[in-house]
């Protein structure tokens, strides 16, 4: 390879051909383009004419330059140019290829495999023995084999969803000299420096890193009512935005994206956080967060119970009582639970369908039978019913004789008071919690005393059901399992009336232990000890969630260790289910950080900074071909043979461009105004139906000609008007063929149309369905007209009366046929006080021009003419048809006259009176 600046050539001797370019220049320059021979009778008129320019005698310089450039590009292309060539010196001796193979490799695994394959190919060509190790595997002394053997094994290499254990491989390295290539994921893992040092001892070490940034996602936390998400990146670079997609099950049970949160890495920052606020129902359905667009287990964070907020329904027995707030049986519960749970309040019938996790009944004694059944059903499905005693429960007879299904124990009549003014004894303190109790281990504050309580009936099971007791041994809290759920009874009130327990911190901790409130975020080793967790779903390195299948259970201690250290081969990341909770084991833990790998000085690092080699042969050849194609066109143009081709090219361009026929593009507004106002112009509304528009245009053309021939109105070629864009004020008259293809106008267009109608414009609506719509029948066009006109300010209408001024503005007409001969033509209704004066042929209607005429006779079709003045559409039959067409034209003339002269003809009814006044 011969390198010239940033470009190298693989076949440099071909460049010698560039010497031939000047010769080519001379040859091409001497040969002018060949003339075209044309037979042309008009040559008799050309004889004797001299050329004024002699340019085409020689090939023009720019054409020469184009051809030279094309040839030069071709020569350069064949010389094999390569941009940023990376000369590789072939090594010798064995080669060890180290692949990290962790989750961070998954983001560009195919690229790594490509790089690996290329290296194996090179090594195979050089005859070097190769060994490939993946650091996530168990350390085994690598065996050097022929490169071909490894090539066959490449498809079997997959990254594992764990961290590469570089340190463990130091001991497994074979002795002896070998070079190594480390395909690194760019992250700093423990032991990396040791392994790098060991490899450098054996021989030269080259590192390849992917330029694609490594991204990670920490587990979501619940902070201040929102889900806080933290994205990590290894290299602090410029500002970047990543999108985090929150996925979960929709109500149909299908996994889909529920929300999306963009978070921004500030420039120079390796951490980006964002808060995602979701309604509790949505939040409780979340299963995982992903950085969208990154295929890596590190970019996926599974959620477990820690994000789930429990729904607690609070129900008090005396909801309507106007008690002080501090006396409210629910006040302390509300205070204790509001930060850690979602509270529901309302009647029992309303909250049970919401399927809350916990229902708290504070001093509720009796329930209606259907409520009780619903509550039992809910309990069977795993609900937790938490009851508090109180005066009502104490006064009732619930659970006295038989065990109430909604109470854990039988109660004694009346209850007891201790330590009051009228009682013996001191208020009772709490006894330490037994080992069987869920409250075991909670510290007892000394100031918690109980002054009154309901008492449990002594039963054989009472001891087993009691989970907290007073110092004298009477049960304070009892519990019983019902179905999959449980009923818990606090034998005191939920407010501070009977005890100071609700005032203490112990109350909150007890609620927490009872799983009433949401658990703290990270379970510690102590929380998990002694339990067995089974993986339900596992993540692979690419971040795809799969069913775990049959996997052995994991002891809680091991899982707790994995939660701290990260997943390993035995405990892949995933969702682990235990006896009463589910725990997500993520690749990145709560405090995880992504640090970029730091390599010792002297280790060449490929990939990250290296500009990739670019083979320039393809682009150069393409450029040469393009220039040759241009040359063909240019040569044709010079020789005058481009006409047909140019037409075709222009036709293609014209097809690609929007139609220019409407002379009303925004910059041409003035042109439109001039065209419309310097002379009378008839205009029609563009409907979007090409056939209708074409016919309307031809119809107005025919009508314009008739007007020109017969009247002093001399219109020019009609215009097409787009009501969305064009100013309407210039046109005295608009023909609007109603087509169902036309969309409803926008609000602005309606405003414009209404202004137009109010200021004296006239629109002739033509539904073109006069053959179909008879008495009462409606066509699609008529219905569309109703929709179109709904937004228009149209006065009351009536069928055109026989004395309307339209019947005599120019011609005397009684029928208004177009292509159809329907008589239903509607105009603005006459004022109700219009009366026919004795002796006058017409009513006295001399104000206003009707703003709309509505009919369905398809007048444009009857008016339509082509350029030569031949009718476009047949009307009727024979002479009768010609007569009908003539009448259609006359109607058109009358309409235009009506528009332009207003009620001049109607005013003529005054002529006798005027003549009389003048003294005739």
């Amino acid at each position, binding site marked *: 390879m011969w390198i010239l600046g940033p470009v190298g050539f693989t076949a440099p001797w071909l460049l010698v051909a560039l010497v031939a370019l000047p010769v080519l220049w001379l040859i091409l320059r001497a040969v002018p383009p060949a003339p075209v021979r044309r037979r042309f009778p008009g*040559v008799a008129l050309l004889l004797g004419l001299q050329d004024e320019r002699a340019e*085409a005698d020689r090939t023009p310089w720019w054409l020469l330059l184009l051809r030279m450039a094309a040839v030069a590009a071709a020569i350069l292309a064949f010389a094999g140019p390569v941009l940023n060539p990376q000369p590789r010196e072939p090594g010798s001796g064995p080669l060890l290829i180290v692949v990290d193979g962790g989750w961070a490799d998954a983001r560009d695994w195919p690229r790594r495999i490509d790089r690996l394959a290329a290296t194996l190919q090179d090594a195979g060509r050089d005859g070097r023995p190769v060994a490939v190790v993946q650091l996530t595997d168990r350390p085994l002394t690598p065996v050097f084999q022929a490169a071909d053997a490894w090539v066959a094994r490449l498809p079997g290499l997959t990254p594992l969803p764990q961290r590469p254990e570089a340190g463990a491989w130091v001991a497994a390295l074979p002795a002896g000299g070998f070079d190594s290539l480390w395909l690194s994921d760019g992250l700093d893992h423990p032991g990396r420096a040791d392994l790098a040092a060991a490899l450098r001892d054996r021989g030269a070490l080259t590192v390849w890193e992917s330029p694609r940034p490594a991204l990670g996602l920490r587990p979501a936390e619940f902070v201040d009512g929102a889900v806080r998400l933290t994205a990590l990146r290894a290299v602090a670079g410029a500002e970047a935005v990543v999108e985090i997609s929150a996925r979960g099950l929709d109500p149909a049970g299908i996994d889909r994206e529920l929300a999306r949160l963009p978070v921004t890495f500030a420039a120079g920052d390796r951490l980006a956080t964002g808060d995602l606020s979701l309604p509790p129902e949505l939040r409780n359905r979340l299963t995982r967060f992903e950085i969208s667009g990154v295929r890596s287990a590190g970019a996926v964070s599974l959620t477990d119970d820690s994000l789930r907020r429990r729904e607690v329904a609070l129900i008090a027995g005396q909801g309507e009582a106007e008690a002080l707030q501090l006396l409210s049986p629910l006040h302390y519960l509300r205070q204790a639970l509001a930060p850690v749970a979602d509270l529901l309040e309302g009647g029992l019938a309303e909250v049970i369908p919401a399927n809350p996790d916990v229902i708290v009944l504070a001093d509720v004694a009796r329930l209606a039978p259907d409520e009780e059944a619903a509550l039992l059903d809910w309990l069977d499905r795993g609900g937790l019913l938490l009851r508090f005693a109180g005066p009502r429960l104490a006064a009732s007879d619930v659970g006295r004789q038989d065990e109430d299904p909604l109470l854990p124990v039988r109660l004694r009549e009346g209850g007891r008071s201790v330590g009051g003014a009228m009682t013996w004894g001191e208020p009772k303190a709490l006894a330490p919690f037994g080992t069987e109790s869920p409250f075991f281990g909670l510290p007892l504050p000394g100031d918690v005393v109980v002054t009154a309580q309901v008492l449990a009936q002594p039963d054989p099971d009472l001891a087993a059901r009691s989970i907290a007791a007073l110092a004298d041994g009477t049960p304070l809290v009892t519990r019983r399992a019902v179905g999959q759920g449980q009923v818990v009874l606090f034998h005191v009130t939920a407010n501070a009336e009977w005890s100071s327990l609700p005032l203490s911190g112990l109350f909150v901790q007890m609620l927490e232990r009872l799983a009433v409130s949401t658990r703290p975020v990270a379970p510690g080793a102590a929380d998990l000890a002694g339990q067995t967790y089974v993986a339900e779903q596992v993540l692979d390195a690419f971040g795809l969630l799969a069913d775990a299948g049959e996997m052995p259970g994991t002891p809680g201690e091991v899982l707790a260790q994995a939660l701290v250290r990260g997943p390993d081969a035995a405990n892949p990341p995933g969702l682990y289910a235990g006896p009463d909770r589910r725990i997500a084991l993520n690749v990145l833990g709560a405090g995880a950080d992504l640090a970029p790998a730091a390599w010792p000085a002297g280790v060449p690092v490929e990939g990250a900074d290296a500009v990739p080699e670019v083979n320039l042969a393809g682009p150069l050849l393409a450029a040469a071909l393009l220039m040759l194609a241009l040359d063909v066109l240019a040569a044709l143009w010079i020789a*005058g043979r481009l006409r047909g081709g140019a037409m075709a090219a222009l036709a293609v361009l014209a097809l690609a461009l929007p139609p220019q026929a409407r002379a009303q593009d925004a910059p041409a507004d003035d042109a439109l105004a001039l065209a419309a106002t310097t002379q009378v112009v008839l205009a029609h509304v563009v409907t979007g139906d090409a056939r209708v528009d074409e016919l309307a245009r031809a119809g107005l053309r025919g009508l314009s000609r008739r007007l020109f021939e017969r009247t002093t109105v001399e219109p020019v070629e009609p215009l097409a008007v787009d009501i969305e864009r064009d100013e309407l004020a210039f046109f005295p008259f608009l023909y609007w063929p109603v087509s169902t293809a036309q969309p409803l106008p926008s609000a602005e267009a309606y405003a414009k149309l209404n202004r137009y109608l109010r200021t004296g414009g006239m629109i002739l609506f033509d539904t073109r369905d006069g053959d179909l719509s008879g008495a009462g029948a409606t066509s699609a066009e008529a219905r569309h007209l109703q929709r179109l006109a709904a937004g228009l300010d149209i006065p009351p209408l009536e069928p055109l009366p026989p004395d309307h001024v339209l019947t005599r503005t120019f011609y005397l007409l009684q029928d208004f046929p177009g292509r159809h001969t329907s008589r239903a033509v509607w105009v603005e209704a006459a004022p109700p006080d219009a009366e026919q004066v004795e002796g006058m042929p017409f009513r006295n209607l001399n104000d206003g021009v009707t703003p709309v005429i509505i009919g369905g006779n398809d007048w444009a079709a009857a008016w339509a003419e082509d350029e030569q003045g031949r009718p476009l559409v047949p009307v009727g039959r024979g002479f009768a048809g010609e007569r009908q067409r003539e009448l259609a034209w006359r109607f058109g003339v009358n309409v235009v006259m009506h528009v332009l002269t207003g009620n001049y003809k109607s005013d003529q009814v005054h002529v006798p009176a005027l003549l009389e006044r003048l003294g005739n």
Partner: protein
Amino acid sequence: MTLAAPLRARAEELGQALPPLLAAAEHLAATVVLGEHGRRRAGMGDEFWQYRAAAPGDSARMIDWRRSARGDAHFVREREWQAAQTVTIWVDAARSMAFAGHRDRAPKADRARLLALALAVLLIRGGERVGLAGSGEPARGGRSQLLHLARALGDDTAADYGTPPADGLAAHGRAVFLSDFLGDLAPLEAALAHAADRGVRGALVQVLDPAEEDFPFDGRTIFESMGGSLRHETRDAGDLRARYLARLAARKARLADLASASGWHLLTHHTGAPAQGALLWLYQALGPEVR
């Protein structure tokens, strides 16, 4: 040439669209042919021929009110057609007429022949006698003459540009010359002078291809006449366009001068336009002048 049958069919088709054409004779007496006077059929003349019942399509002023007042029906007074006119047609058969500027367009000669024969169909249907100048055959009437005409129209000449015949025009008749008039104008001048001498009036129809009007050529070009007798080479044809158009306009102006000086009508007809317009114009040019 085997064009005769289809050409005639197409000409008949074109001629059917118009009512029978009757050339008004200004010098009626001079052209009356013995035995032809009083043709025993309705037509334009001074003598009463017959009354007939009014039919749809008759205009109101055609109704003879005096006769109609005597009964309930309306009558139209018809007059006898009195004279036959001799019309001589010359169609340029030179090579230049074989030019067609676009492959979709017919050559000019086709159009000229079509017009000529359509006119002949109309004239013969109206009872006129039609002949071809330069064919040596006398002008005749009757349907069989159409066959002769169609056959004679098929002949081509080898000359590059055609020259109108200086003689062979029937005195006081009408004549129609169809050509592109791109060649030398001197023979045309002579022919028109001769025609004026013999009291012949008529129409010149210049049949041009749109390419000849637009000169849509560019670049280095060698122009040759259809026969190859004339040749002009240019390095930039587009550069010549303005001057060519000026010369063409001058040629048309000269033709108009010639026509008006000898009382002829002139029409420039393009093969890109429908033939009907030209035939209509010919009908009006040869028909009675409406005052």
